[in-house]
């Protein structure tokens, strides 16, 4: 049986066209603010493209999805592209 023990882990790497945020573990209400701050920090400096790799995420709740959607909205408003990838 799969046992759920750990919480959200995040790392950032430099991609060819912008930062790549890799998420793993579980994203929920308790980590939503942290996730939002991480994404906001990566969007600083006029970044036009942000890749978020969620393939390692076992769980994401509506608060976490909201943080991702808002980051995408911010990028679209500045004419860039934000999309979840896997």
């Amino acid at each position: 049986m799969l046992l759920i023990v750990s919480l959200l882990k995040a790392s950032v790497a430099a991609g060819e066209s912008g930062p790549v945020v890799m998420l793993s573990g579980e994203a929920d209400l308790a980590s939503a603010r942290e996730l939002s701050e991480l994404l906001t920090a990566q969007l600083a400096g006029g970044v036009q493209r942000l890749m978020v790799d969620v393939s390692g995420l076992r769980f994401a709740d509506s608060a976490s999805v909201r943080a991702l959607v808002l980051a995408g909205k911010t990028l679209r408003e500045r004419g860039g592209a934000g999309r979840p990838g896997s």
Partner: protein
Amino acid sequence: MKDNDRRPDPASPGDSAVLADTEADMADGTARLALDQAFDSGTLYALRAAVQAHAIQEGLPESRTDDLVIAVHELAANAVRHGAGAGRLRMWERDGALHCQVDDGGSPASGSQAGPGGNMADRWPFLQGHGLWLVRLVADQISVFSGLGGTRATVVFLPATGQDPSVSAPD
């Protein structure tokens, strides 16, 4: 969100019958408590793990177990965000259906925690909250009731056959 009844109605065993609350279900001896766990913001992950394990133990199919975990988590997250910051989950089985009831522990008696609004009805914002929208997508039935003791939400996951338990075992 069509049913706030918390007592079974023998005359019409429909939604209201299966959405009976814990106390009513336990009292008539047809239900078996599977899990009773308190939670707060920092222990939602443990709540999810416990719900997942018990749902599997109760024989819920894997895909429905995922749905159940999502539903309970979103209800618990609402309790944390809009209630007293903590809550209690009770999960029980009745006639093959799994019932999960979340209480937000909110109480007007603890006025300092109730917030300046004080209006019980808008404690869990339905229209703005994507969490409850999600719960309604995955749960077979949902009931939310706000009263003096806070907000109580109950979701029901029916057996895999899709059979209505209130039809096969009326009582």
